Structure formats: C-alpha cells, structure tokens
C-alpha cells in the first residue's frame, strides 16, 4: 500500500470517513480547524453532511441529534470549545449514544495559547461535565494513529454505546508524516434503539431526565456496569524497554515519542530506563504500571501540563515506589531536555 504524506488533522478526518462517518458538526478553533475544513471539502463530494455550527455548544447538540439516529457522527474542537461541550457530552453519555469527539489540545486555562498541551487530561478522563459518567479517551502519538484511532473510536463507540474522545496535542494535528491509508469499514452494528420514525415498531425515546429517584439510581448503576465492562476489555498501553527498567517513565501522545528518543540516548549512558505509554487514557491502563511497580524503583510522569496523569500513575503504583513529575507548559519539551531530566531524577534516587 502506498504511503501518503498527510497532516495529522487531515489523517484523522480521513480516518473518520474511512470509518463510516457521515456527518461533521463543528466550529473553527486553532489548532483543530483543519478537520472541519477537510470535511467541508469532502462531504459535499461524498454525500455526507458538513455543518459549521454557530458555536461548539450548538455543535455538540447537533452531534446528539445526529447520533440518536444511529449514524456515525463527530465533532472536533480544542480546550475552550470542549469546555462548552461539557453539558452536551454529559447528556450524550447518559443517553448512551455513540459519537466521536476530538480534542486537538492547546494550552489553558482560559483562552490560553495555541501551543500544544496535555492539560485537558482531567477534563477528558473525569468526564468533563456534570454527573457520574465516563467517556473512552484515546491518545494517538503519530499521524498514522490519528487515522487508525478515528476508525477504532467509532467501533468502540458503537460497541459500548458511549462517546469516545480522541485527544491529541496540537502539534500532532499540525505535523505531517507518511500514512498507510486503511481500507473502508463496511460492517456496522445494528442500532435498534435509534430514533428515525417508528414505522413497524414501538416508538423509541432518547432522554436523560429521570425524576423518579429509584430509577435515576438504577440508570447510574446501568452506566457503572457499562464502565466496568469497558475497564475490563479496553485498556490499551505500550511498553517500551521496560523489561529491565529501574526507572519507568509514563507519558502519552506525541510526548511519549519524545520520551522514547530520550530513553534511547539515556540508555547509552548506562541508565536502565523504560516507558509505559497509555494509549487509552480512560480506561487508564493501570495493569501494566502495577506490574512494572513490582520491579521498578522509580516512576516519572512526563506531561505537557502541571501534572494530571500523575494522579492515575500514583493510584496504579499504589505506594510501592516514588512517583515523580516533570512537565512543561506552552511547548513540547525536546528529547534533549527530557533526557537531562531523566538522568537528574535517576541520579537523585541513586539509580545507575
């Protein structure tokens, strides 16, 4: 299969089309606008739907509507826009509608900056909106994964009837790498719950209001069971040079690749360092980290934030080793910088 040089955002959009996406609803925001622009060019030619909504708030509600028909639909935005979508995401999760939400993440809080960041981790993995719910969160680290995860996201969304978020640092959306274009998805699950006209069946209702307190509790238990099932089946992570590692770095997204380069250089200096890269941020892959905690002497969470994923690393390590943090804001740190930090931390703990 020939490789095509593609921008991350465009690879993701193309992946969604390959995965059977028929509608995009969104609003321009740096650094995700290219996804909207790609869909604006393609959908008129393919017969799908592109709508530039009046706001991100309107867009997520268009997604709610589109998803309720059983169609594969998506939206894309960045920090401030995802915040606007929080109410809608809570609704979609409770209504158990599948959809894809993309966060090409930038620095915050507030209007923040347009440089890449990973500081929406809490927002993504703790639901983001009100109430007891979760969404599946995937973190790609390459342009190829931007395409592949878009396809996977729709499959997971349909399988579990839940919103799926792809969270990628802004840089990943902007950079170009060769991509193997995947074959079109042709198999889709049935959706008997969808609305679309009740001919030949009892009417379907899509709602999230449950005034009866017992029923509300019941609904929360239903959702909790679903999340338990997702936690059992779907955590994904990658282990890199962890077999003999004294120091295990945990990092996700493009950041994880920078860490890999740093680790390769640092190993030349005699340090035994490895990386565990969460691919699903929710459900968090606690298992490989817990296993590594049997042997490793130190964990280092490296994030483009003030430290959010470190909470989940600490939970997985469960007190068996110290967990340190290194992070930057407003830029992706270089492999040279990460290498220096790894060695400094390792030396401090007497690991060599």
């Amino acid at each position, binding site marked *: 299969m020939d490789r095509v040089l593609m921008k991350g955002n465009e690879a993701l959009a193309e992946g969604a089309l390959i995965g059977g996406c028929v509608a995009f609803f969104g*609003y*321009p*925001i*740096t650094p995700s*606008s290219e996804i*909207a*622009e790609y869909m*604006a*060019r393609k959908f*008129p030619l393919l017969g799908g739907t*592109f*709508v*530039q909504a*009046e*706001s*991100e*708030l309107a867009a997520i509600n268009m997604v709610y509507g589109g998803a309720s028909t059983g169609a594969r639909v998506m939206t894309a935005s960045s920090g*401030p826009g995802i915040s606007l979508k929080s109410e809608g995401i809570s609704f979609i999760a409770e209504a158990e509608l599948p959809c894809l939400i993309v966060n090409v993440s930038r620095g915050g809080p*507030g*209007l923040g900056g347009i440089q890449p960041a990973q500081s929406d981790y809490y927002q993504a993995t703790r639901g983001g909106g009100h109430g007891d719910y979760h969404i599946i969160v995937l973190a790609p680290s390459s342009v190829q994964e931007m395409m592949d995860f878009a396809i996977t996201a729709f499959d997971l969304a349909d399988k579990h009837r839940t919103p799926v978020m792809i969270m990628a640092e802004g840089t990943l959306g902007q950079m170009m790498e060769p991509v193997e274009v995947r074959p079109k998805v042709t198999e889709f699950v049935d959706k008997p719950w969808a609305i679309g006209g009740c001919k030949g069946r009892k009417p379907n209702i899509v709602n999230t209001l449950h005034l009866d307190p017992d029923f509300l509790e019941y609904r929360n238990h239903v959702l909790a069971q679903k999340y338990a099932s997702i936690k059992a089946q779907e955590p994904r992570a990658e282990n890199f040079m962890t077999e003999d590692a004294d120091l295990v770095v945990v990092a996700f997204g493009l950041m994880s690749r920078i860490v890999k380069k740093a680790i390769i250089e640092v190993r030349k200096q005699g340090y035994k360092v490895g990386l565990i890269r969460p691919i699903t941020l929710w459900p968090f892959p606690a298992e490989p980290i817990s296993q590594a905690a049997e042997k490793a002497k130190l964990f280092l969470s490296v994030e483009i934030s003030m430290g959010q994923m470190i909470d989940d690393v600490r939970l997985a390590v469960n007190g068996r080793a110290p967990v340190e943090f290194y992070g930057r804001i407003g830029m992706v740190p270089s492999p040279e910088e990460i290498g220096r930090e790894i060695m400094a931390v390792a030396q401090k703990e007497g690991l060599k």
Partner: protein
Amino acid sequence: MKTVAQRPQSLTEVKTHYCPGCTHGIIHRIVAECMDDMNMRENAIGICPVGCAVLAYDYFNFDMLEAAHGRAPAIATGIKRILPDRCIFTYQGDGDLASIGMGEIVHASARSENITVIFVNNSIYGMTGGQMAPTTLLGQVTTTSPYGRKKEDTGFPVRMAELLATNEGSAYISRVAVNNPANVIKAKKSIKKAFQTQMNGLGFSMVEILSTCPTNWGLGPVEALEWLENNMIPYYPLGEFKVKEA
C-alpha cells in the same frame, strides 16, 4: 511648528500585528479619535474579542478586558451595571458577534444595555484562517465553503444591523464602511453618535463596519477595498437603521 495630525492619545505606541491592508487599523484609529474628541479616554473600558483583534488590549490606551468568544456583550453588561457612568464598548468580529455570540448580542440589545458595540464585518473568519462566517456572501469561497456558499446548504448571510434594529431596546444602530476616505469620515461620525447615545443613557448602540480581510479573501489591499464596495455594500446597505433621540 503647528501640529496638524498626531497619533490619538487613546492609542498606544505598540506596533500592531494586523496584515497589510487590514482595516482594523483604520477602525482602531477612528474609535480612538472619538475617545480623544469626547475627552473620554480615562472613562473608557473596551472589551476585545476572540479574533484578529484579540490583542486590541495592547493597542488601546485605556482599560481593556479580554472576553471569551462571543461573550463580550455579557461582560460589558456586568461592568456597565456596576459602573454606569463609564463608556463601555465591545469590539467584535463576525464570528464573535454573529455566530457564537448571537445569543449575547441579541439579549444585550433587547435588555437595552447602555453599551456600544463596534462590529467589524469582513464576511470571513480571519484569525483562524479564513472559514465561513454568518456574514459570508452567497457564492463566496472560504475554507469551510470551498465550493462557494450555497443557500440550499447554509442559508443566507445575516444582516445584523437590521436584525438588532427591530429590538425596542436598540437606541442607535448603523452600518458604515471604511473602504474610502469619505466613508471613513462618515464611519467616525457614526461611532461618535453611538458613544453619545450611550453617554446620554438612551440604550443599546451598535455600529456595523464593513471591512476587508485581504489575506483570507486572497486579494491585495486595494483590490479588497474594491471587492467590499462591489459585493458587500449592495447586500449590506449603509445607513442608520435606528435612531432614538434624546
């Protein structure tokens, strides 16, 4: 030597980041001149948008506030209710005012908030790279209407001045353009009248200013001014749509 022209006091000396030929420069200047003429610099509070003018707080020489996208009229409300004797204005583009901020602007006008809105309409989204705006004309090519805006697909461009003029709460609504010197002079007069409306406590005022975006229209600065005259003015007529006398 007599000074015949100088930088308005209400503008800072910071070099702006606007593109060559962008009319934000002209608009900033005439707003600042109004502030100077009316001796209001120290009484003024401006609220800038998310858009190319997001850094306007560095260019105006008085108190300035940054707003989330579209929310400036609500923020202006919060300030004006607490400090009713100040001159409060928002400075917004078409995404900020007519798209995400549509709810806020309609209600600020309906509530007759005593604020002034400077609405820069260049029928495109500048800062984010040239996407379609609610004010984009039919047939106009943008990055999210790559085959030209079609009414079957996305309806019709919004005429904000006419829309808001129908609200009883609107006290002064006008549309001007800055495509030639005569129009720039008229635009400044209208902006002054809007500020006067606010200071006289008459209610909500807005001046919609037809402007250019050479970079995203793909035209040179002079061609862009011609494009404005030939394409925007026919659809967005100039004039005063609501005038409440004192």
